[in-house]
């Protein structure tokens, strides 16, 4: 059991983190104090053209030297600093959260490395799989993940979450069940600008993990949700599938439902299932994924975890519980339970 929240303002008007903290804390019953986290988009306008790399360092000597070496090999560090934090009585500081604002060199692109984003993906995989004591947990542009082991209020206060202004927010309150509670295992999970919060278990994790590992992704974070971020990067970015189609690959309709579809739709869904059988996710889940394009929420195919949506003008809310949305916006309207596997999409106004 976990608690999740997704928020987008389609006009890119920003909201500070204080309300999202209050909304997540309302669902404290859904967590166990072993992990909470937030991600906000639009928080680094001064470095909007840089990749904001958030890193957990176990110490500032050996692991940081190694990360610095890799970054200098691939590009330029425009700015770096410790992420501002405030000690909390109930939160044990296990790692030092650090951030780099990083620009890859243009001339490193070529061959298998087709874009800047491929460079960032490569760096994240290399650091997380080979450097002891360093973990890149956020690597997109103009966005950042803030997470730790603790309760929602503690983690928010530790990072002074109210100081950040975002037009997309995701938040997660963790109740780890079959994987350890540690800083790297807290949600959101991120790669590039994909961030994922998840309530449930991905019981198809082994199949999904082997599938993404064939494309150079390395699962290193000891829990299932990580693979969802990589699936979105593979299908959404590398294969350029629209978000609706990615969701239909991960949580597809049943075969008998496909059989009843009109011919063109049937053909499409049959093709998606046949092509992306290894990306299909089984088990109970409610997920919200954010990117620089917007947010999408969806559940498993038989709806074994709660998810409600609501809206108010240009604001879209997705949450495990309606009450949490009402903390964010007491005037929230059109509150409803989406169907199992139905993608709930919020994009910025054109």
């Amino acid at each position, binding site marked *: 059991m976990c608690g999740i929240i997704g928020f987008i303002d389609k006009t890119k008007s920003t909201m500070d983190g204080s309300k999202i903290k209050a909304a997540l804390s309302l669902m404290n019953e859904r967590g166990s104090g072993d992990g909470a986290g937030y991600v906000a988009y639009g928080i680094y306008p001064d470095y909007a053209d840089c990749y904001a790399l958030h890193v957990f360092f176990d110490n500032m000597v050996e692991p940081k030297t190694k990360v610095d070496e890799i970054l200098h090999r691939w590009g330029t560090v425009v700015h770096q600093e410790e992420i501002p934090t405030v000690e909390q009585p109930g939160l044990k500081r296990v790692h030092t959260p650090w951030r780099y604002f990083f620009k890859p060199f243009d001339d490193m692109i070529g061959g298998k490395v087709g874009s800047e984003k491929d460079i960032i993906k490569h760096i994240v995989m290399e650091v997380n799989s080979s450097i002891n004591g360093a973990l890149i947990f956020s690597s997109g542009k103009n966005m950042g993940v803030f997470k730790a082991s603790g309760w929602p209020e503690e983690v928010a206060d530790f990072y002074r979450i109210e100081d950040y202004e975002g037009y997309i927010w995701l938040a997660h309150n963790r109740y780890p069940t079959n994987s350890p509670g540690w800083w790297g295992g807290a949600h959101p999970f991120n790669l590039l600008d994909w961030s994922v919060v998840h309530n449930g278990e991905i019981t198809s994790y082994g199949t999904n993990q082997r599938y993404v590992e064939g494309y150079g992704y390395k699962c290193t974070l000891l829990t299932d949700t990580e693979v969802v971020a990589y699936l979105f990067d593979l299908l959404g970015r590398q294969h350029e599938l629209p978000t609706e189609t990615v969701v239909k690959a991960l949580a597809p309709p049943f075969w*008998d439902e496909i059989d009843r579809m009109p011919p063109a739709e049937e053909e499409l869904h049959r093709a998606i299932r046949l092509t992306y059988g290894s990306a299909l996710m089984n088990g109970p889940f409610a997920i919200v994924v954010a990117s620089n394009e917007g947010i999408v929420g969806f559940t498993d195919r*038989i*709806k074994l975890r*709660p998810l409600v949506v609501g809206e108010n003008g240009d604001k879209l809310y997705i949450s495990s519980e309606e*009450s949490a949305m009402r903390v964010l916006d007491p005037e929230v309207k059109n509150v*409803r339970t989406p*169907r*199992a596997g139905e993608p709930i999409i919020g994009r910025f106004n054109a």
Partner: protein
Amino acid sequence: MKTVTIDAKDMHYTPLNQKVRAAVADGAEEIILNNVLGQRFIGNGVRGNSRIIVNGVPGGDVCMFMSGPTCIVNGNAEHAPGNTMDKGMLVIHGSAGDAVAHGMRGGKVFVRNNIGYRGGIHMKQYEVEARPMLVVGGTAHSFLGEYMAGGLVLVLGIGQEKAMTDRGIGSGIHGGEIIIRGEVDDYLLGVGAKKFEFTEADLERTKPVIESFCEQFGLDPAPFLDTNYTRIAPASSRPFAGKYVWE
């Protein structure tokens, strides 16, 4: 009438529910909870015949194990309202989340609008005196009456083109009945569920329930008092008798 009013604003559910219990123990006939938002377990295990008014959106498991009182929710409800409820009535002036009336064993749960997945899951019944009833004004999502062992689930489909369009109705049902306004497509039936004709005799039995529901929400029952319903019940009393048996 002895009335107790509690302002639940920003109150955690533990002190709130302690106050509710104290009010019931003190003989309050009406307990009004204002500014409720997300507090779980309201009215849990409460006995007697008091009337609890919840103004706002209560958290999960409202009226769980409740045995006797009437609870009116002026707002939507989250997951599992009426969980394992024993006696009394829960009236929700809105919609509710998943697993409404989960394991319910007596009393009534009335929801004006829609409910989520697995409404009435594991409802059960003891002879005629403990027959739980879940009535939904709008529609319900998949697996309505899943593993149902007794009681009644009624879906009126108010404002809906079809009362039910989600699959898995009565999946694993082995007791009780699910009554749905209008026709139900065969492919929506779950494993072990079977459609039966809704007869005049069925209407006679169901009429008091429909009238009681309409009375709570100020609706005219007349448009609902005909035989345009589908009755869904177990295909047999032991639909899974052979499932885990190898002969």
